């Protein structure tokens, strides 16, 4: 299993994601200006402030050369995980539904939050059971998930709403407490919480590992080890 973690200028959590993925498999950094995905089995679009995010979060990064390859990779069914800024980038690139708006508080928020797994039948959550509760931190200014009501109904019906903030835990005003969604094909997943910051008991929790473990289980189920 080989993970590729994109590094944009302004990425902050790319090394954290790289180290987290290395606990599960092999992991390499992918440079934003290169079109080469180096034969990875899964791509992680990490957290941070790609290109400074001075426009709208993720709005510039979607035009990066590497993102053209990621879009192609996703269309071919490859696994793409977007964390925080990565989630914003994937929404901007229309690889995921919805949009991320500024937090209701208009302030940056860091918090260790509890998440409910509502959809365990995805390549990113298959190591979990429905109803599992994960303790994972959030840290963002622009993390309020939004989609029109009809779209939200459709997402729920299609099982594309994967993670919810547990009752009373919504840190940003996301509609219907949505913390993470996947695309129709279920091979692209974005979430605001940072699973790469929940991989070691020493630094608080290991619940985030389940996301990476799920990805490995999915990939090794498809390709012989």
């Amino acid at each position, binding site marked *: 299993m080989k993970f590729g973690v994109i590094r944009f*200028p*302004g*990425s*902050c*959590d790319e*090394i*954290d994601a790289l*180290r*987290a993925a290395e606990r599960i498999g092999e992991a390499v950094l992918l440079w934003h200006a290169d079109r080469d995905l180096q034969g990875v089995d899964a791509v992680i679009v990490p957290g*941070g*402030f790609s*290109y*400074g*995010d*001075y426009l709208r979060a993720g709005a510039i990064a979607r035009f990066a050369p590497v993102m053209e390859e990621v879009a192609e990779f996703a269309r071919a069914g490859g696994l793409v995980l977007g964390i925080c800024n990565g989630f914003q980038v994937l929404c901007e690139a229309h690889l995921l539904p919805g949009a991320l708006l500024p937090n209701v508080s208009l*302030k*940056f*928020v*860091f*918090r260790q939050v509890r998440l409910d797994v509502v959809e365990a039948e995805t390549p990113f959550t298959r190591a979990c059971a429905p109803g599992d509760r994960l303790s994972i*931190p959030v*840290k963002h*200014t622009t993390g309020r998930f939004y989609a029109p009501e009809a779209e939200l109904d459709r997402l729920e019906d299609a099982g594309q709403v994967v993670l919810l903030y547990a009752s009373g835990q919504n840190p940003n005003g996301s509609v219907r407490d949505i913390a993470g969604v996947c695309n129709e094909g279920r091979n692209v997943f974005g979430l605001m919480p*940072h699973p*790469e*910051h929940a*991989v*070691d008991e*020493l*630094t*608080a929790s290991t619940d985030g590992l389940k996301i990476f473990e799920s990805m490995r289980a999915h990939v090794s189920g498809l390709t012989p080890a």
Partner: protein
Amino acid sequence: MPADAIETRSGKPRAGDQSSRHRALGLTDHEYELIVERLGRDPADVELAMLSLMWSEHCAYKHSRKLLGRLPTGGPHVLLGPGENAGAVDVGDGLAVAFKVESHNHPSAVEPFQGAATGVGGILRDVFAVGARPIAVLDSLRFGEPARSERSRYLLERAVAGIGHYGNSIGVPTVGGEIYFESSYEQNCLVNAMCLGLAPRLRLIRSAAAGPGNVLMLLGALTGRDGIGGASVLASAELGDEDEAKRPSVQIGDPFTEKKLLECCLELLDRGLLTSLQDLGAAGLTSSASEMASKGGVGIDIDTCRVPLREPGMEPFEIMISESQERMLCVVEPERVAEVMDTCERWEVLATPIGCVTGDQRLRVLRRGTVVADLPVRVLVDDCPLYDLEPIQSAIAIYEAPEPVLGEAESPAEVLLALMRSANLASRRPVFEQYDPVVQSRTVRRPDEADAAVLALPDGSAIAVAIDGNGRRVACDPRRGAAEAVFECAANLACVGAEPLGLTNCLNFGNPEKPHVAWQLTEAVEGLAEACEALGVPVVGGNVSLYNEAPGGPIFPTPVVGIVGKLPDAARAGRLGFQREGDAIALIGPFHPSPVGSELAKLQGQPPRGELPLVDHEAVRIAHDWVRNAVRSGALHSAHDVAEGGLAVALAECCVAGGTGASVEPPEGLELFGEAPGSGFVVSGPEAALAGFDVIGYVGGSELEIAGCLEVAVSELEEAREHGLDEFV
């Protein structure tokens, strides 16, 4: 071109208009005469602008340098001491930790968001200038009373937002800090930022320029008119009513540019492409180039026409003193310039050769081949006169009594709840939730989990860091108050099991030319020195911020102390909250608290006056050693130092953090709310672990019960503490 070409360049006579020229730039007549004597001529305009900054308090430490010599700086772990961009200590396993605290007080008082943001940006550059990757930021903040001052609420909210904006965006965790509110900071808020960086020992680099013929390169942002004269206009004079007009002197920060610059510089160092590296801070190119030349015993030529500018028409003097952010200066061997340019291009960092190293120990500034400044480096860096202070203790009270918010007759339970919800003691959650404490995946103890932040190292050990200072206590008794700051900071480290390796400080004081402020400063430095000697902690760097004074008087004298320490096993880092029902609780240390200068005294409206408790320094050291070793061995389940609010508040904090109650019978006659920071610890653990100490109580239940005194539900304590700052942030 000979220096006298400068004289005739502007073609106008000098003699008549001298006084207005140098005084407007903040130099005294005596200093100006000294400059003329050293140069053997009148300085040209560019030269005078450069000298006025290099001879400012901010750059030359002219009122503090003599005193600072009193601080101990040597120790077995010290790798870089005072004088470098940041100090550094050896943390084992081939690694070094570089760190420094610096003030950005005056810019923050004028424009809090950018002032605080660029304070963080500046201290980050200091740390990566020595080759270390910044791994943590802490902040020490002081504002006026938030309940009464709309200005203070505005400054607090914007400064916190600015710190978060910069630190969060650049991917460096903000892991700790402190905030206090006192009316003496109403006009002069304090924003001190501390940064720690981690580097392989062999990558540490000094800023000394070397090798005549080598190329001087400017990396990073364009040079603009922002921050012109910040060091002299803002940092070295008292604030007055026309501060709005000073706003153009505040720099604007761009964390994205700095993030690229940081990654780029570290890659350049990793590839061994740089001979030396220096950040651009106060006084911009002037200060950086002269410091580099001075340390290397060489000269530097700079051609201002080669400096990439943000706006056209900038004069050489503006280019030389601009404080535009996110710039670094480096020296490169000629054959490596191309490789440096390639690396910078990949990181989208502008890199421009702007001059060269020379052998003649002069800083020369050229414009299109014409020399517009030609100064001996020594005159810029070493010749500023150092002043002796004239310390005299004030016979009259300097600070007014605060407004009382608590009567004398309140019950102990009411007093405890009032303290828990007071602005100085309430939970800092609304603030630290605006900062990312976990990026870089090292953070073993986050804010509120322990008395110090703990950051894991690759070999399983960890470093710990805390920052402390209590201006009110130093106002009461500068010598003992400053010593307490060191003891308290070291006590915070002991509570997580860390041994102090090095200390950095920021001395925030009023106008040192006033005898009573000079006395505060002199006494405080003596107190710091005594405490450092007692604990064997060397001072490896720091910063002085003077002239924190408004028409209403000086700020409380506020030495802020940051200590970095080490613990052998990250997994055994201590926690502050009570962990297990039935654990015994002990009070450790030579703890003899008094009400003088306490939070309770403040709430009761008493002025900051009186002698602080005399502490036996050796007994303090022994107590710190015991707590540190007990935490390291895993024998204790919690450890917390007794600071603001005394024993009662310390117990309440242990209860709230652990979500459990306790019943305690304190030693007879002990002032429950009296303070003596750094000399007492509340610890809990199995009774056997506390053998030889007086057990004062046990963990358990849902209330804090102090025998014969108070009984309060932990939920009530938590409620009071949790919401004390809500309406202000």
